[in-house]
């Protein structure tokens, strides 16, 4: 067990390193002269030279890469070219919106998706099952940004119940903050719920046919006890794994949804930085998002190994 986790941690570190290298190569090696990318072709020579010195471009790329890695390990970020402040502060304020938004969306997906999947599996090939499967197919096909627009159209423009966008910050109070995040979280969470419902359904169906379920039934355990105590436990592994994989898409989706609802989150930061060619901000923000995706999947794998010790023998 210990050597299994030691190896997983090693792979985790190597994956992070490779991701950092990929980001660095795309942003700082491929373009040749990053200073020229930031300032554009018509830039003044003196300004270019100053920026090159500022970015340390007189040093070879591999030195800059290791320098950046050192900064990352010390949790230090570069200085944004457009805002002239450390990227860390920008990321922290964006994370204050995107973090709660993602958690809210995952919460909605879990609360809706898992029970729906359970309902479908226990009513296989009956109306309840068909209803859930239709919801799942529609939920997977509807783009989250279109769903977001429809929600605004209904709840903000037609009914006027909720704000169409904007976020005044958490200092206005927890409930108003939650209210501004409700529609964005719903538009991200509902498509995820559709996927979770599907995965839960097939995982539960597979487990319901397992020998230990038959044994539990033979021992006279009640149907609800079998479902909650045995089946859900075993089915939680595929559900967890898919949730881990969906985190990446959720964070990517928040870039689009934040734009629709005018939320000052990480997505907005990354999108603006990319349009303004703010290389340092793009580099550090993408690194954070990608590292979060890798870390969450690492944690999910570790959790799955703890729930079910079998996979680690073969892995």
């Amino acid at each position: 067990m210990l050597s299994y986790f030691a190896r997983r941690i090693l792979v985790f570190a190597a994956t992070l390193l490779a991701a950092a290298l990929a980001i660095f190569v795309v942003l700082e090696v491929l373009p040749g002269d990053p200073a020229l990318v930031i300032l554009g072709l018509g830039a003044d020579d003196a300004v270019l030279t100053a920026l090159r010195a500022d970015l340390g471009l007189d040093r070879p790329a591999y030195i800059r890469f290791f320098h950046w890695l050192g900064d990352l390990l010390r949790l230090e970020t570069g200085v944004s070219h457009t805002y002239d402040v450390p990227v860390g502060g920008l990321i922290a304020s964006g994370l204050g919106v995107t973090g709660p938004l993602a958690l809210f969306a995952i919460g909605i997906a879990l609360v809706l998706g898992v029970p729906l999947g359970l309902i479908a599996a226990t009513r296989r090939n009956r109306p309840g099952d068909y209803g859930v499967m239709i919801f799942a197919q529609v939920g997977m096909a509807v783009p989250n940004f279109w769903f977001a627009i429809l929600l605004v159209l209904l709840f903000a423009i037609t009914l006027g119940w909720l704000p169409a966008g904007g976020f005044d910050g958490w200092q206005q109070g927890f409930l108003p903050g939650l209210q501004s995040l409700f529609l964005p979280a719903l538009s991200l969470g509902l498509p995820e719920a559709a996927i979770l419902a599907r995965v839960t359904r097939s995982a539960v169906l597979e487990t319901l046919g397992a020998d230990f379920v038959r044994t539990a039934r033979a021992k006279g355990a009640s149907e609800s006890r079998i479902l909650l105590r045995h089946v859900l436990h075993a089915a939680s592994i595929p559900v967890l794994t898919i949730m881990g994989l969906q985190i990446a898409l959720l964070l990517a989706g928040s870039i689009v949804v934040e734009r629709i609802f005018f939320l000052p989150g990480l997505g907005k930061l990354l999108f603006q930085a990319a349009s303004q060619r703010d290389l340092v901000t793009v580099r550090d923000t993408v690194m954070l998002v990608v590292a979060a995706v890798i870390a969450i999947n690492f944690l999910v794998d570790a959790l799955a190994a703890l729930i079910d010790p079998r996979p680690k023998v073969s892995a």
Partner: protein
Amino acid sequence: MTVSRNFIIGLGLTATLVTIAVLSLIWTPYDPEVIGGSLRAGPSWSHWLGTDWAGRDVASRLMTGARTSIGVGVVAVAIGMIAGVGLGVIAAAHRNWVDDVGMRAADVVFAFPAIISALLITTIFGPGAINAIIAIGIFNIPVFARVSRNAALTVWAHDYVLAGLAMGKGRLRLTVDHILPNIAPPLIVQATIQFGLAILAEAALSFLGVGVQPPAPSWGQMLFDSQTMMAIAPWLAIFPGLAIAFAVLGFNLLGDGLRDMLDPRL
């Protein structure tokens, strides 16, 4: 082999989509790029789905937009399939360091959703359809690499493949003769599903303005344009979204149906 209901509905939707895209090459009700006429007119007999902020016919733009979606999907899936399947079957054939490095590299690429890669590429090269296709294609590579490696490994375990190896056939030869034909079914299913995802990703990127550039019509960009006029012209926000949803639904159902038919275990 029984034909599944999902397959029939999926085939119907995707065939309609392809027909509309092909039809748009020779005929659309109006020129999709000509501006003028009545602006933001609601659906009527002369303009079935209304007109947009520049007076362009929405139905004609949706028809040409179908071409964009399909074009991006085909190229992005082709990139992912060629590179991913190549990597996957080589990894399965050798099971040495190539396998280890290749699969770990696939994990790394998998941590970059298409939107993130597209924004990375846009930062350096500016926005454009080609960049969007490359970003979506790159995201498809690890998906096909994993599916083809796993499928190929089960084929390699068969005795007749090992017999071929014992008779002195090369691993490349065996891969071409036996592995590739046998892993085709799961790859076709995966390609169908990735096609739907590619349409979604292209729409998202064009919505953000880093995909297909105007004046070429794309569904995502039509949705973005509709946002500022939602209160007065809601149909502009409805029809492009419906088009995306039906296209993706079609490919998802087609993939599910194909899986039901090709892989009876599930």
